[in-house]
């Protein structure tokens, strides 16, 4: 199943990224790997979407970045959550849950 790339639900990339970063600062590669691993390869982030999303989130002030050394002594840009981003994560989580629950209700309906 490793090469069956599922698409992320539209609009969830930012939420997933924020959640990932809430566990600690990471570079772009790390974020993509984390999501892939935790979702058991179901959700595979396209690099082409990830980096523009990271830039957008920087503009909106949800994350900030700085250059650090990786454990393997390489230079990489690490992103971390800001207070604004943390607040945004909560907002998106709430909104997402509500939508999922609503979808569930529709799917479980027995009669019109």
């Amino acid at each position: 199943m490793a090469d069956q790339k599922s698409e992320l639900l539209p609009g969830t990339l930012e939420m997933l990224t924020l959640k990932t970063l809430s566990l600690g600062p990471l570079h772009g590669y790390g974020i993509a790997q984390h999501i892939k691993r935790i979702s058991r390869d179901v959700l595979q982030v396209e690099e082409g979407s990830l980096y523009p999303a990271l830039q957008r989130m920087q503009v909106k002030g949800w994350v900030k970045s700085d250059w650090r050394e990786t454990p393997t002594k390489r230079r990489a840009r690490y992103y971390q959550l800001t207070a604004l981003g943390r607040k945004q994560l909560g907002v998106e989580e709430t909104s997402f849950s509500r939508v999922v629950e609503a979808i569930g209700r529709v799917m479980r309906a027995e009669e019109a």
Partner: protein
Amino acid sequence: MRITWEAAARTWRRLGWSLRPNHGARELDEEMRFHHEMLTRDFEAAGLSPSDARDAARRQFGNALAMRERGADAWTFAWLDDLAHDVRFGLRQLRRNPLFALIAIVAIGLAIGINSGFFTLIDTFAWQPIPVPHAEQLVRMAVRFDRGANSILFSYPQVQAIARNSQTVADALPLGRCSQVAFRSSASAAAVPATVACVSGNFFQSLGGSAAIGRPLVPSDERDDATPAIAISDGFWTRAFARAPDVVGRDVIVNGAHATVVGVIRANFVGFVPITPDFWTTLQAASRVGATPGALTDPTNQFIDMKARLRAGVTLERATAEVSGVIAAAPPPTVRADAPHVAGVELRANGSMLAMTWQMVLVLAPALIVVALVLVIACANLANLLLSRSLARQREIAVRLAIGASRARLVRQLLTESLLIAVLGSALGFQLGRWTVTIVSRMYFSNLPSTFGAIALDLRPSWRVVAYTVTLGVVSVLAFGLAPALQATGANLTGSLKGDDTMIGSRVRRSHLRDALISVEVAGSLVLLVAAAILLMSIRAIGTRDAGFEPERVSVASLGLSAIGRVPPALVDTRATFAFRAARVPGVVETARALDAPFTSWRLITLSATGGSYVRLPYNAITTRYFDVVGQRIVSGRAFTPEDSAAESAVAIVSAAAARVLWPSSSALGQTLRAAQRTDEPDKLYRVVGIAADAHAGMIWDSDDAGYVFLPATPKDFASFDMPLLARSDTPEPVLARAFEDIARQIDVNAPIHVEPAIAQRDFMLVPIRYGSWITSAVGAFGLGLALIGLYGVVAFAVEQRRHEIAVHVALGAASADVLRLVVRREMRLVVIGLVVGLALSLGESKLIEAWAVPLSPLGIGGFAALASLLLGVALVASVIPALGALRIAPMQVLRRD
């Protein structure tokens, strides 16, 4: 509020990012290289060879460049990028058609320049505050009486009362109307006449006048025990001292008394009016050297213009009430019990040089409309040109629309091109406007006689002028850019792609906009030309009209300094001697003396016929031979005799028009005139002994039916006024002038003498009209030129657009004349419509111009017809020339193409 805060924060972050070199592209590259390395390492760990791993990683990674750009996109301002792109594109378009760009920019630049320059003039005089600190605190005062008119002249005791006792006035700024003085820059130098402004000691400090060298006048200069101190102007420093650096402290002689130069005032100092005297001195010093018309302490001596600076925060109403109370307690100007009493003061703001009253607006409105018309014509032209060009690019635009460009985006792009033209044109126009105004005003003011004093105008462009110019630019863009852009992009796509616009049978979409523009241009040009013609004809008329007398061989000689109200007895004698000797100069036919020379502004006298109401008429006090000198006939009765003057007998001569006004139903001879006196004395009675022919003897803009009254000159007149000498002679004026100068020098070597022909005053009065006519003619010709170029372009384009149609006509056997008529007919119809509209507007315009005080000869029906025909003819030529190109169309070639 939250939304805008977020937007602001976002913008702030974006700005920070855009400051990084190359938008942080290198950093993004490095970041993605890192990711790529990590992916490669993963693939290697999964078993691929290093090179395979790298390729796999790259495939997974995707297009790095696109990613980088999309990433960078989040940071940039989208509209800014678009704008930059549009500007580059527009510049490229302009560079490809340099001729068009040049014509467009120059045309708009000139049109905006004219408007901007005119507005600068209005702004400088009407709106710009006088360039002194806190000009809004300045007021001018007038004395209010309990009956009768206000007086703008104060006496010195009144000034002192205000200066000392008023709580609301911060600085009292009197300006005395003083005579010219005889000035000697050293004991050995000759005397020259100099103009002096008599002010108070706080004048310079309050108005921000600093000295270039030395010091300005200060309050301590008002003390009576000090040597009179004078502060000279920069121009006078050049003229009388040759800019000697040691002028400060110099001992000079003013009217025979010693004075000291304390400083030279900086050259660009403008007080209340832009007229700079030769030097300033205090009222006290002026009185001591005899430059004031009387004793300072005399309360009946009213000669001072009173302005003041109010304390900060004081309203006009409060100051009026308070100063009125103060002045009521001052010594009154007259002790007569039945004279009007001082009731208070009237205050008016004096922040700018000209008050913007309704009359001022009426006077300026026609000129403003005229210059605005030029801009309209230029914009209409440009719009036509752009329309033609964009129609030529129809296919390109259609393609771009077809592949998905939004119409708004395309319109924005086309507008940007127009914006570029307008921006460049505005910048050019702004600069042109400034240059033109400076040059024209310098030329104009250099024509004024030196007795006015030098003009110090500060024609700084204020923010208002800049804003006006920018607005004009924006309006121009919208006017000439928007409509063509909208029309071009509203194209019929498939039709344009297929080249439908040139096919026969399809409706050739007639651009109504373009038609209207042509008519507008023609109408505008006609209005401009009519204005120019009216002005030109007026000048001719004024110059050649029968004045009712013969001023051609009359010269006016003024001896000695112009005194106001009081002539020193010595000067009275000098002048009498001069008149006596001048009459005997060979070649002099007749001499006389008069209160006012011809073509100057005559004083007014309030008269009534017995039993009638009072009228105010211009009058002159003359010696016996006046009418012979000026060549004015006496139609009935007699002229004055020497006995009339000597005996101060109460006789008068009236002009025929005055006679009609005063005694409409009977002869004026023998009737009695009642002349109201200034104080409350009873009317003086005069018996009419002669009627003179009507003459235009005063200012050129006095109406034709002005009457005049002549009274015999009395010794009191000679003792109070200059009474210049009028001489009719056979010799040429320069010879006569030299003879008079010799005589004057023999009598009194120090007294200045000025001789000029009588018509010099009349010609001087014509100067503003002359300038107006030149400018209007130039502007009108410019507008016409623009219109013609536009017409040419439009017809040429029509020929191009309709070549199929023409080819068919020619193939079917149409004659050349028919082809021409076909091409030109539509355009000429528009021209005729424009002429009709223009004629209607011109009639209204000439009514407006007549509202000016100048007696302009209206343009007769013949004149209008001539101008309209001229325009029609020129338009015809401009249309036919490109239409001739239609004749050269080879029909088979055209029909076979496409």
